[in-house]
């Protein structure tokens, strides 16, 4: 027993020594997200954002060399994400946690960040509650509430009165439904019907026919990425729903670049709320898209911009602390920080550490023979409304 204790103590001492040695010259960032499995593509796009930021801004900040340690959580696996986050801190001596593509994984890893007092950047997972789980966490993506409540309010202001909602029957879908309903009803609108379709649904004809038969002047849809957006877009066209009379509204995934390619002209006229699109018209974004294309031969998307801005938050925080990597200094440095992102202006909310940004309302149009999301309205400085309503 005593020998075991001595052994453990030695091990701990070695680990501490290793961490201390690392702290002098390099800063390690443990990136935990899906590099394989069903969510490999979003993971790859976040990673591309990280790589591009480091290429453009060098790998040395405040005299420290930045080193990325990549860990594959392989999909929805909170236990794996938590274990990897622990390992990357204890064994590899990481000073930062970053990545986190999926809500369950981010929630599980938040405990690690809180206990180890490590600065953590949620680069994608979009459920409101996540950032409340660790006082050392910031988010550089968006929240479902932020986009959809803004969309609900916007819909009423723009003449929509009766809406049918159709959402995917899992957590984020329920959030989207609740957020849109809240924004729309508070403004004065009426929800005349709603349905939740099964997560693995493939054919949307019946759901959309039912929505159409209830005679709404707007249909709200929340759909995750993957094959479903295209199936929905095509079913809307096939059901003969006239988009001039019935506004079809949703979160940006509905009209992602891939989805629009498969939908072709069936996608025309869809209205979505989102925080980023590669078609966003700004100098900063044009340069970003060009550099991204040169490097990775494809367009950046919401995942890439989350990774890119996440790295920006880490770099700027390190500069402000002069290279100090303890969680308290870093989080103090990043609170209230504002910058011009490819998506437009964004700020880290000093109270919630969540992102404050512009929500763009876009319509699918044909520009030079290509279907793209054209921004035609925007709501500036949107905070996550869900956290604003939490008792303080």
């Amino acid at each position: 027993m005593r020998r075991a204790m001595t052994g453990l103590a030695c091990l701990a001492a070695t680990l501490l020594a290793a961490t201390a040695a690392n702290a002098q010259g390099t800063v390690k960032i443990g990136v935990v997200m899906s590099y394989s499995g069903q969510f490999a593509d979003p993971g790859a796009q976040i990673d591309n954002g990280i790589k591009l930021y480091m290429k453009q801004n060098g790998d040395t900040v405040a005299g420290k060399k930045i080193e990325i340690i990549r860990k594959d959580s392989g999909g929805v696996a909170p236990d794996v994400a938590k274990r990897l986050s622990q390992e990357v801190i204890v064994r590899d001596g990481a000073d930062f946690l970053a990545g986190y593509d999926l809500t369950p994984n981010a929630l599980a890893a938040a405990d690690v960040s809180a206990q180890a007092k490590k600065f953590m950047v949620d680069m994608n997972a979009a459920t409101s509650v996540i950032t409340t789980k660790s006082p050392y966490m910031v988010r550089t993506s968006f929240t479902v509430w932020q986009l959809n409540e803004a969309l609900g309010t916007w819909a009423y202001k723009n003449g929509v009165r009766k809406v049918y909602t159709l959402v995917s029957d899992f957590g984020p879908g329920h959030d989207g439904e609740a957020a849109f309903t809240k924004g729309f009803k508070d403004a004065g609108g009426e929800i005349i019907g709603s349905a939740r379709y099964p997560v693995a649904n493939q054919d949307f004809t019946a759901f959309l026919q039912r929505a159409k038969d209830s005679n709404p002047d707007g249909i709200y849809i929340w759909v995750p990425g993957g094959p479903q957006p295209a199936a929905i877009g095509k079913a809307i066209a096939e059901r003969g729903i006239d988009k001039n009379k019935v506004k079809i509204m949703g979160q940006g995934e509905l009209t992602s670049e891939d989805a629009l390619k498969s939908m072709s002209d069936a996608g025309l006229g869809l209205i979505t709320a989102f925080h980023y699109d590669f078609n966003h018209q700004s100098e900063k974004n044009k340069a970003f898209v060009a550099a991204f294309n040169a490097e990775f031969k494809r367009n950046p998307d919401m995942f890439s911009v989350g990774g890119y801005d996440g790295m920006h938050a880490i770099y700027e925080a390190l500069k402000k602390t002069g290279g100090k990597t303890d969680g308290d200094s870093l989080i103090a440095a990043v609170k209230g920080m504002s910058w011009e992102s490819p998506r437009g202006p964004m700020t880290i909310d000093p109270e919630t550490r969540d992102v404050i940004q512009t929500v763009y309302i876009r319509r699918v149009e044909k520009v030079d023979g290509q279907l793209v999301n054209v921004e035609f309205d925007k709501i500036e400085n949107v905070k996550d409304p869900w956290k604003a309503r939490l008792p303080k």
Partner: protein
Amino acid sequence: MMTSVFGVLFDGFAYGMLLFLLSVGLSVTLGMMNFVNLAHCTFGMIGGYVTVTLMNNLGWPFLATLPVAFIVAAAISVAFERTMFYRLYRASDLDQCLLTIGLVFVSVAVAAYVYGTIQQPVNLPNYLRGSVHVGGLTLGVYRIFLILFALAVTAALVAALEFTRFGAQVRAAVDNQRMARGLGINVDRAFAITFALGSGLAGLGGALAIDIVGLDPSFALAYLVYVLIVVAVGGLGSIGGTFAAAMLLGISDMAGKYYFPAIGSFLIYLVMISLLMWRPSGIFGRR
């Protein structure tokens, strides 16, 4: 009210046709050759990717890709059958399941490696898009096409098995393999062709399914459940049974989602359970 009923019937019928094309091959191989081929939808996926590749990379018209999807899926399946499956014809069900489900995972990984995990776009020609209005009903043009196409395929299949010399050989081989061999029928060849035919039909179904349900590497697994339900409910080896089961399940799935969206996706399983309790070997089961 009546229009919605007809609309649901029509859409359900079209969806059922899709299920029929995807599953009839499995029903034939499972029923006639007693081989549990869980990799059946892999051939559907192959058909889908063939169509996507020909259309997007080589600019072929949609209709011209369909026969190629059939042939490529059939050819690959014969290669599999001759190299792997035939060794397990007399093996236990578990061995067959393990081999074929393993192939499914391999095929999912290969598709993801070659084509990426993204959704494959397919743009149908204009004459297959949109919808026509018939007496207050909105009928998707593509669904009409799907129904006509599948009916033609069914007719051809029934004719081939019932009225040709080859069909007679296959039926003889199934009824009594030893006797058929004794009469000089080349049973191995008959089975190989049957297998290819079934997989080719799956390939065709996969190609036709893209526009309605999309195509990505998970196709081989996502549709396996539906196909197995259709085969189980229809009864093994019965084309008529598979047809009836596919119709029934397509329509009940569509009706469930339209009239009871809250439990809609569950209805298909309820229908399956009650049908199997009524007739454990399927609607037209022979055993």
